[in-house]
Each structure stands twice: as C-alpha cells, then as structure tokens.
C-alpha cells in the first residue's frame, strides 16, 4: 500500500494558485476513481493537500486533475509547471504530523489547523473515503498535535496585535464579561480589537468619535452604544478597558488629567490600548498605579516575543513528531508482518516497508 500526500501550500503557491485547486465536495470520490483506495482532501486558506492510500502509484498529475474537476476555478486552464509537492510513506506521515501540530502553518503554532484537519477527516469519513490506513494515520496525527501542544510552548501567547491586547486584558481582568470597554476613534484596528474583546465575552462597549455619525455607525456594527466625544473623559471613571485610535496630533490623555479621574477607583485596574500613531496617550500614564498602558509598539513587541518563543519550541515539537513517526511506522510494519505470516507471504523487511509497502 502506498501512503502519500500531494499538495500545495503557502510555502509553494500563491493564493490564486491555491484557490484554483481548492476542491469542493466530491473530490474524494473522483480521487478514488483515479486509483486511490483511500483519499482525504485538506483544503484551507493556506493549503490544499490530498492524503491518499493506494495499491498502485497515482501520479501527481492525476491528483491535480481530480482536484481541478471539483474546483470552482477549474475553467482557468491548466498550468504545466504545477507547484505541487509530494511526500511518500515516512515523509508523508511526518508532514501530516507537522501540519496538524501547526509547525507548517504560516503562523507557527496556530491551532486552527487542527480543527480544520479534524473537520476534513470527518467529512472524508462520512463519505466513506477514509479506510483503515488513513483512519490510523489521522488518529495518530491528532494525538501528536495534542501532545505537542501539551508538552511544548508552541502555542504560547498571541502573535497578532489584536489578540495580544485581548490576552493581556484577560491576564488583568480574568473573565471579560463584566468589563466595560470604551473605543475612542472609529478606526479599523480599534474595531478589530473591539470585536476580539466581544468574542471573549465583553458586552458593555461604548464608542466615542469626533464625528458622531461614524461613532454611531461603528457602535451599531459592533453592538455597542455611541457616546458624544466630549463625554469620554468622564467615561474613564467607569470603564475597565480603553482602546484609542484617533488621529489627534497631540496626546488626548496625560497623567495630569487622568489621575484625578482615577482617584475614586483605586481598587480597579485600567487597561489602555493605544493603537494610534501619533500616540493618543502620554507614556507617563503607565506610571499611574493600576494603569497598564500598551501602545502599538509594546503590543507588537509582545507579539514578537511570543513568536520567538514559539520558534524556540520547534525543535522540541520536531522531536516529539520524530518519535511518533518511528513508532507509527514500527506498528504498521508489525501489523503487515502479522498479515504476511497469516497469508504465508514473505516477511516484510523494515526498509522495503518504508519504500514500497506502505
């Protein structure tokens, strides 16, 4: 049995190319007609991959054709130099384990890929395209991904400005359900950050903008309420999180005007996310007790620290994967030998297993 993976990803193909081969439903059936005993298509925004098991070698071109048949963009013509990679046997197993663990992702350690892989597996299984080989392979891949996440820090921290801000808010306040948030300025980044906070449980969101119409628009979009711009300083008495992104040339908030406002809320921290350039908040505000100020550079720096830590963890993750690859191969080789003994065939040598039997 040949176990293989054919695909293209953000490493090898641009988004247009990936879109061309992003196969819809039914691709697995076509792949089986093309000669695959088992087939699974993993199509995400960053990759389109086919995992298959077949008695005879199914060429990369045949697989590409099968994908094109089910792609919405199939009428765009066929390029001769396709950026597909192909992994067989051991390399295929290793590749899937790396993909499921997030090592092959654009953002190392992202966890969305595991959910996408699980969904692809469930779809293929429901359509009957997954047999014992791919079943075992994918089940092991899920186990490996879980182990990598548990035993390394590959998923630690956040690597985008918005998610860093939300993570920090959770490190200060814990649950965000009771937090009151004020968005100052109706920019795109502040909207994204506000949405991220809402997704983590924030329900009380206020928007204040110089142009009241834009403020109301944003408030409507995110399910908050608009506050007149001249009232925002009073809001600082009540709120827990302030997101500022106005186009003001001079700082709107200084230590001198914030300190009296905070006098009556000494027991509650205030988290300020200043994503404006030039900054809306004087850096000296961070010196006030209970105030945590993060400007865009600080948020980026935290994101970079997280990414650096994730990169440091790659070696540990690779070691876990290598261990599982050898173990998986050994188990399959034992099984094949057992089947060979029962059917009276010659024992399968490990080397030949890697090359041809698998």
């Amino acid at each position, binding site marked *: 049995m040949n176990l293989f993976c054919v695909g293209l990803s953000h490493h090898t193909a641009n988004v247009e190319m990936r879109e061309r081969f992003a196969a819809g439903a039914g691709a697995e059936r076509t792949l089986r007609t093309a000669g695959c005993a088992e087939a699974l298509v993993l199509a995400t925004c960053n990759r389109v991959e086919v995992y298959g098991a077949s008695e005879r070698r199914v060429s990369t071109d045949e697989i590409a054709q099968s994908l094109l048949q089910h792609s919405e963009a199939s009428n765009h013509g066929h390029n001769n130099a396709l950026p597909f990679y192909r992994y067989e046997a051991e390399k295929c197993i290793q590749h899937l384990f790396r993909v499921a663990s997030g090592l092959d992702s654009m953002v190392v350690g992202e966890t969305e890929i595991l959910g996408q892989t699980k969904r692809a597996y469930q779809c293929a299984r429901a359509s009957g395209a997954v047999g014992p080989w791919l079943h075992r392979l994918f089940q092991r891949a899920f186990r490996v991904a879980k182990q990598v996440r548990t035993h390394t820090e590959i998923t*630690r921290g956040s690597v985008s400005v918005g998610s860093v801000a939300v993570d*920090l808010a959770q*490190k*200060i306040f*814990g649950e965000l359900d009771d937090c009151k948030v004020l968005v100052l300025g109706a920019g795109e980044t502040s909207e994204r950050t506000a949405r991220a906070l809402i997704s983590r449980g924030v329900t009380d969101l206020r928007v204040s903008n110089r142009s009241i119409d834009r403020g109301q628009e944003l408030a409507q979009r995110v399910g908050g309420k608009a506050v007149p711009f001249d009232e925002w300083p009073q809001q600082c008495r009540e709120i827990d999180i302030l997101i500022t992104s106005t186009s003001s040339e001079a700082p709107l908030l200084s230590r001198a005007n914030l300190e009296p406002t905070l006098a009556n809320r000494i*027991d509650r921290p205030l988290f300020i996310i200043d994503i404006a350039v030039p900054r809306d908040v004087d850096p000296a505000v961070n010196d006030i007790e209970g105030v945590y100020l993060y400007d865009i550079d600080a948020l980026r720096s*935290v994101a970079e*620290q997280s990414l650096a830590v994730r990169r440091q*963890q790659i070696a540990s993750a690779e070691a876990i994967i290598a261990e599982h690859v050898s173990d998986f191969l050994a188990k399959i080789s034992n099984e094949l030998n057992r089947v060979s003994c029962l059917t009276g065939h010659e024992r399968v040598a490990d080397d030949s297993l890697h090359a041809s039997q698998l």
Partner: protein
Amino acid sequence: MTCGSRICDVGFAIRGMSPSIAKQGARSYSGLLRVDRFLLIVSTICFFAAVVRTGLALRAGVFRPGRFNFLAIGLGFVFQTAFLSIRGHALGRYPLTNLFEVFNFLAWSVALIYLLVGPAYRLSLMGGFTAPLVVLLQGLALIAPIDVHHPVKLPANSSLEFHASVSLVAYGAFALACIAGVMYLVQERQLKTHQLHSIFYHLPPLTDLFTAIIRLLWLGFILYSIGIASGFFTGRPLPHLQIVAAIAVWLLYAAILQSRYFRRIAPKRVAALCIIGFSAALTLLWGITFSAQTHPLP
C-alpha cells in the same frame, strides 16, 4: 499568646512511673523520634521535588501546572501529617513544644491551606511558590539545633493547645496570602514593564489573585482572632510583650482588611502589605517561641 504560656514545655520524663517503665518509655520515645524525623525528611524531599520540577520547567519555559506538583505536595502533606501524628502521640499532646515542632506545624498549615485553596482558585502555580516556603521551614527545622526537649513534662492543656494550633493555621493562611501577594507583584511588574516572561502565561489574572489574597486574609484574620481570644482562656499568665506583639500583628491585618473594605489602598499595596504582614507575624512567632524556650514560665 501563642507559645507564650509554655507551649514549649514538654519534656519526655514520664512522671509517676517506676524508673524501669520510665526508661522503657524513654527508649520507645526516642525510637519514635527517629521514625518521625525520617518521615519529616521524606516529606521535605517531596516538597523539594515540587520545587525542582517547577524551577526546571520555568527555566525551560515549558511550565505546565500538571498533576506532578499537586501530587508531590499532597504526598509531602501525608508524611507531614504522619510526622505530627507520631510526635503528638509520643508527647501525649499537640506537637508544639519547641521551635522545631512549631516550624513543622506551620509548614503543615501552609500545605493544608494550599491543598484546600489552590485548586479552588485554580492557582496551580501557587504550589510552585508554596513548596519553597515549606522546604525552607522544614529544612531549617531539620538543620538547626532547635529540637530541644524539656526535662520536665507539664500536663496537657487543651485550651493552650487549641490556642496555639488555631493561631498556627491562621499563620498558614497568612503565609498563603503572602505567596499570592508575591505572585501578584510578579504579574503586575511584568504587565507594567511589558516584559512578559514564561511565568506570566502561567500566573492567574491579577483580579483572581487579588480575590484569593483577600479571601486568604479574611480566613487568616478570623482564625487569628479566635486564636488570640482563646489565648486569654488558657489559665496561664500571659507575658505582656507577647500580648502587645500579637495584637500589633492582629491590628496590622485588621488595617489591611479595613483599607481594602473602604477601597483606600490599591491592590498592589495590599499585596506588598501581605508580605510585610507575614514577615512580621513570622518574626513574632519566632520571638514568642524563642522567649518561651529561653525564659520558661514557672
């Protein structure tokens, strides 16, 4: 007050017995002491394992608040309990007769409160902070020549024992509040300076830590109040200096809680005061036990 009226009062002479029986009793007592010391060493090793594990994990940047620390501390607690139980059995009363036993009882209280409070507030990393304190207390008790036996055995005094043990459990709660305070300050510092180290991702949110600090302070304060009140009903004279010192510690914690209640001080200061308060309480405890050993009451 705590140990003030001869908590450290028991020797192992067994009064009212014939010399041969007393000799036999003394032999079995010293045998028990060897066993209990062994249990204490095993317990300290368990806590030390938790310290090493946390240290290595944090250094490697892969700390996971898994089961190991909780199990190591739980096992250490079992051996601590066995140690105190054997001691108590040998003495025929609560094992609070010298500084050695007081330190160990305090370490036991710290572990007990951690095991009760840690999982409830998901303060898993607190185990990593608790274990060093226990190792310090037990290590000091094992190394320093403070396991002094008094030549004369005084009859057991249940109200004195109640006073001492409740006060020491209160100290355990204050110790945990102090540890939570250290965790709070570490977390706060990292958030302020924007330098987020590995430990940052494993520490609980600031507000959760602060809630835990306040609850531990209340628990300790209530127990300490009971301990102080019961100290007046021990039927023994109370040294004035110790009363003043104990009330000073009580007032300090009362002031912290009162300021918090009226929202007069910031959480960071409460955390810092927890550390100061516990240091003061520990100094007082040492002072009381030391003075009781060096100047026993008639």
